[in-house]
């Protein structure tokens, strides 16, 4: 074909701003996995994928009345701009909530954020330059990895086992970085009822992790969305309870409702000041209405009892999932047994790829999240995350039964074609 013939009168790449995007948008492309999750939203599919809290268990009538009353009585404040640090009364309430995990904090140390996801974003914004190293458990929360990627961080995963982050592995990762002349900016960890692994950092390891980070001068970011949702005994003691230098991220998304988008960070004064400035530049202030609603909820509703209701509900669902897994999973599968939170981390038989298997699972009307989403480098295909927080127990059992059939079929397919190249 001649060059003349190849000249196009009007080539289109659909997006007129293609040449203007920042380099960091390179990975922002349509994905088959996301497309499959669109199917998971249909009621025929048992979705064990999303970590949606079971909001129907909330006293919605009472929340509705409070919302109406708030506008009627204090609308001029609730619908007005607020401060970048957040409502002082709410910050006091947040300190009460954290006291259940042993955290003694002053309201001045608290910065209210748009869910803890924004706290994570602000933390990354103030600490991380492109190419900086962030340490995170392997696997790690997918939303955190997305934030780290958007700031072009280099995530180094630290292995975990059934007792959480392995301190020796953390020390080894730090030593390797030092040997390479690099230094991590912080450790991001979810020590209690981990997302996605479902495990909890045990007591002795908590101190060991804090000691290692203290020696290395490494800030610790403790993400603790599920800390109050343990199924037995008292909530695990937060890392922040034993070390005031720890930067703690909390949220009402699991104990009240994610639609309110109220989270927070607790940080030492220097960090707090930067977080407030960063928050103001990001959103000016957070929703005054949502903050005052949460403040009112904490002041007038039996929220501790409500948390117990959620715990019992999620415990029943966790039991349904573990029972179904024991009853039906093919040999070679292994899974964590969470003591709280929303998730089970399921290891697949050798050679089975959770990402490749997803379309078959969707066709069988069950959804999960492939493990690859929880590693910055795309590894983790030998695991998948199951969440039990939203479906009713019978649906969970049905979902696990379907999943076991899919894994069995996958094993047969693998035996037919041999291991993937």
């Amino acid at each position, binding site marked *: 074909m001649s060059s003349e013939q190849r000249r196009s009168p009007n080539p289109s790449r659909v997006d007129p701003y293609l040449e203007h995007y920042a380099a960091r948008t390179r990975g922002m492309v349509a994905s088959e996995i996301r*497309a499959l999750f669109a199917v998971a939203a249909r009621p025929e599919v048992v979705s064990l994928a999303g970590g949606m809290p079971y909001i129907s268990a909330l006293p919605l009538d009472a929340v509705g009345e409070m919302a109406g009353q708030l506008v009627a009585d204090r609308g001029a404040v609730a619908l007005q701009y607020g401060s970048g640090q957040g409502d002082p009364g709410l910050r006091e309430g947040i300190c009460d909530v954290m006291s259940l995990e042993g955290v003694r904090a002053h309201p001045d140390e608290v910065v209210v954020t748009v869910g803890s996801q924004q706290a994570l974003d602000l933390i990354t914004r103030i600490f991380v330059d492109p190419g900086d190293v962030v340490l995170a458990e392997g696997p790690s929360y997918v939303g955190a990895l997305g934030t780290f990627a958007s700031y072009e961080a280099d995530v180094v995963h630290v292995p975990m086992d059934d007792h959480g982050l392995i301190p020796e592995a953390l020390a080894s990762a730090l030593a390797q970085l030092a040997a390479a002349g690099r230094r991590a900016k912080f450790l991001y960890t979810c020590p209690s009822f981990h997302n996605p692994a479902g495990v909890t950092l045990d007591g002795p390891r908590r101190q060991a992790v804090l000691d290692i980070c203290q020696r290395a001068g490494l800030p610790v970011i403790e993400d603790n969305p599920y800390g109050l949702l343990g199924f037995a005994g008292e909530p695990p003691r937060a890392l922040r309870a034993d070390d005031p230098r720890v930067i703690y991220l909390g949220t009402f998304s699991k104990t009240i409702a994610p639609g309110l988008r109220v989270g927070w960070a607790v940080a030492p004064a220097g960090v707090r000041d930067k977080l407030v400035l960063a928050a103001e530049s990001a959103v000016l202030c957070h929703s005054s209405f949502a903050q005052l609603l949460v403040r009112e909820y904490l002041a007038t509703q039996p929220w501790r009892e409500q948390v117990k209701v959620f715990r019992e509900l999620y415990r029943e669902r966790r039991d349904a999932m573990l029972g179904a897994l024991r009853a039906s999973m093919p040999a070679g599968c292994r899974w964590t047994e969470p003591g709280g939170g929303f998730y089970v981390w399921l290891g697949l038989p050798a050679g089975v790829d959770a990402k*490749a298997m997803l379309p078959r699972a969707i066709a069988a009307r069950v959804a999960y999240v492939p493990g690859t989403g929880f590693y910055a480098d795309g590894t983790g295909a030998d695991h998948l995350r199951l969440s039990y927080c939203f479906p009713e127990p019978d649906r969970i059992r049905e979902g696990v039964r379907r999943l076991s059939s899919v894994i069995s079929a996958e094993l047969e397919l693998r035996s037919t074609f041999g291991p993937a190249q």
Partner: protein
Amino acid sequence: MSDLGHVLVLAGGLSAERAVSLRSGERVLDALRDVGVDADLADADAALIQLIDADPPTAVFPAIHGACGEDGSIREVLALLAVPYVGSTAAASRSAFDKPTAKSVAAAAGLRTPASVTLPRETFHDLGASAVLERVVARLGLPLFVKPARGGSALGATHVQTAGELPAAMMTCFGYGDTALVEQFIPGTEVAVGVLDLGDGPRALPPVEIHPVGGSYDYAHRYTAGQTEFHVPARLPADLLARAESTAVTAHQALGLRDLSRTDLIVSGREVFFLEVNVAPGMTETSTLPMALTAAGLDLGVTCRELLRIAAARGD
């Protein structure tokens, strides 16, 4: 408001192409409303029959891709409900959706199509995968293109360069269906040709050349704006453009399709190869059929309204 009455755009469904279909449906819905049509969007779910019974639409525009939308089943149900719909009949859709069948029909109509074999999953299980794949490579050579016999949006499709890549490609394919179509890979210019029949016989729309930037025309390149460069009309000599157009019209007619379709072709040297045909073409911002309509000077909303009018007048 248009005199057409109330119409329904069907989108969603339960196939892996649900997300794409929802985008197509929303776009058709907006386009119809822009030209004054009283249109609503509905999913193909348990509420659909009740919805149609309660307020029978003048006609339905199916924008459901993949199984259910393109395999004829939803059209069969619409026929049972005596609701007119845009597009091909259930029987014709079944033939078109099954790629091996469509290739046979196209070949019988004199069109060139890449050599291929069609194999269900059980065959590999029963006869042994390596022995079967060895014969496949011996027959078709390399490189190959593996795709589900039924399905779209390049889901489960892999371009295979070496025999060693073939088992993984087969497993990927069987994620989206139980039968695989293994085709000779024909290098060349990828072209999509829409066919439209507004009552005066099928005519080809300007062929759209698809040029993925830095990769193959996979799911990400199809549905991420900017990942693919489109040229309308395709950068082909006039005679090849005309042959691409006639190939699409021939496929449309040979398969007994009606109203609209989109045929995917490869132009390699002086040859035009038929790959597959779609009876519910994508209507998203990155889909080729709406681009072709624009290039032909046709408005998406006006065209869809005309197709609904034709369906309503036809009565099925």
